[in-house]
């Protein structure tokens, strides 16, 4: 059972590292989309209840939203904006890529100290979930473009969701769908705001949003 789950986890780590080192916004969107699809497979392989409709519905919804709708929304926003790459992030790409493995090591160390019985979650899930959360937060604070910050938010959400699939096995479908709906609406509203930022400022650099102080 653990083989396929572990494969997905390794895949998550690789996509995260790739996000840390990529400057092209279009590529970033595609990487996050692939990550979303991998995440959609996770509940199926983690619980191995092939007959349960609940899991299939959930997997379908996740893959459809994270792998299809979000990338479509974001690449539309990207096409309308004048930027295609993140040129000068607050933290350079070299440094970002070096931070990745260090963060990964920290996450493994932290999760080895968390009391969690292995029957609840396979051993790789917790450190990788933590790592994904950290990468998401890092992307939000270290990048300037509004679009990259939304991608960071999605990666953060992916990490939290990985935790959720592992820890909260019996989450009711209504809540899961509600969470997905909220994330969808969040990306939608953020997309609209980015559209306005682009129209108002002719770019989507959030470090220029600095007229409100103290």
């Amino acid at each position: 059972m653990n083989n396929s789950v572990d494969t997905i986890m390794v895949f998550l780590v690789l996509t995260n590292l790739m996000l840390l080192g990529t400057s092209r916004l279009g590529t970033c969107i595609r990487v996050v989309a692939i990550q979303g699809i991998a995440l959609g497979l996770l509940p199926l392989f983690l619980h191995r209840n092939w007959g349960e409709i609940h899991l299939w519905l959930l997997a379908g919804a996740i893959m459809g939203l994270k792998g299809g709708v979000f990338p479509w929304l974001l690449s539309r926003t990207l096409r309308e904006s004048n930027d295609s790459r993140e040129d000068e992030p607050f933290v350079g790409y070299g440094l970002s890529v070096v931070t990745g493995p260090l963060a990964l090591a920290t996450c493994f160390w932290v999760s080895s100290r968390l009391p969690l019985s292995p029957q609840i979650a396979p051993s790789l899930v917790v450190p990788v979930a933590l790592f994904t959360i950290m990468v998401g937060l890092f992307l939000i604070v270290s990048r300037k473009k509004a679009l990259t910050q939304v991608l960071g938010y999605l990666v953060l959400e992916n990490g939290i969701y990985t935790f959720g699939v592992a820890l909260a096995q019996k989450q009711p479908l209504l809540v899961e769908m509600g969470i997905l709906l909220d994330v969808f609406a969040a990306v939608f509203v953020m997309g609209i705001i980015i559209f306005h930022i682009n129209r108002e400022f002719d770019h989507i650099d959030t470090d220029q949003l600095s007229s409100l102080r103290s």
Partner: protein
Amino acid sequence: MIFLLILIPLVAAGLAFAIRQDALRRGILVATAMAHTTLTLSAWWVRPGPTLRGWLMLDAPGLLFLSMTSILFLAAAVYAVGYLRTEKPGKREDFEEGFLFTNAPEAVFTGCLLMFLTTMTLVTTSQHFGLMWVAVEATTLASAPLIFFHRHHRSLEATWKYLLICSVGIALALLGNFFLAAAATKSGGESTALVLKDLIRDGGHLNVPWLKAAFLFFLVGYGTKMGLAPLHTWLPDAHSESPSVVSALLSGALLNCAFLGILRAQQVCAAAGQDLFGQNLLILFGLFSIGWAAVFILGQIDYKRMLAYSSVEHMGILALGVGLGGAGTFGAMLHAVNHSLTKAMLFFVAGNILAVYKTKTASDVRGVLRVIPISGVLWIAGFLAITGLPPFGIFLSEFTIVKAMLDQGRTWIAVALLSLLSLIFVGMSSTVLKMAQGRPSDGVSGPAKGEAYLAIIPPAVFCVLILMLGLYIPPAVSSVLHEVARGLGGN
């Protein structure tokens, strides 16, 4: 009946988006608010039973916060009608920088207001932690377009900060939810559902380290939305850039809803015998918020930002009160009611001042008492109330909280609180009193036909209410407040 409470504003929101005639849409806004308030108040006599497998229920904290939200929304709806009448469509000049901008369509504004009410109702009525999270995130999304009503670069900046900071914060609260689910999973693999009642019943069996981690994430996540320092950074921007009626709702209703999330987590902690852990954290965050707010209120030049920082201060007092437990919790709940009413009133009046003087800089506003006398009197009354002077309600609730500190022998916290409060009093008084008195600069004149009723009645009614709450607490309110305090392990 709980379904009705949620469905009425939801349907009305749908209608508001579709209707073209302004007058009809404004009528729907007020009618919905009245229906919602009537239903909510009727719940004080007949408490509706649980629905949807106990996921939706009105317990004492829910009822209290729902009532505040509903009453505030009614006042805001009335005020909004007057406000929207003065906001003519088309391009207008910015007060501060002189460029031209347009407003968002009124249909979008009204629709989002009603969606905002729907989501806040869902927050206060939901008993399931997951559902509650969904509702809190939905409040962020429903209110973001409200902040972006005036379409210019400053409100855009405020909206972006609000969306991103609150969404990330609330995402962390989702992690808290999952940790709570882990805490509720027994070693055999079976788990308690994340419904408040079940969690409290099984409180003794919860896994303590996971529960503590869950509480931390709830505190940070919902604390971001509630505006506890140092997580409050979105709050002054959003409050100063949005229309005053939205600021009133954000400050008086939304922050409370986020606080309810922390209260629920604390209820579970108390049931698991871990109330001290949560209480100490709340005291720490509370004191820090009050201190931070005091620093920024002193020397604040923008009067709407000053009110926003005052909200940070009062959220700190709420956290502090609940952190004390017992009588402190009772005081904190009373304080939540008083603060909501007072702050909404102040934001309404600030909107009136802004409409006449066309500036948010306090030093450019002089002689409010002469130009718009009723608003001027309400501005001073609101200031006296918010800084905790008798005979207003906040005096009573702050007094209760300080007394709880002294009874528990925590003299140092009381000394710190009182000295910070007096600092804030000095800071606010120098701003507010100068605005109210003096001679207005040339070219400033009040409305020709006197002040509009719709702009005066909502704050005036709230002024009477907070005066009443300072002198007499109705027994029904008092018993609900006691019930909340008992649920948090007090007596």
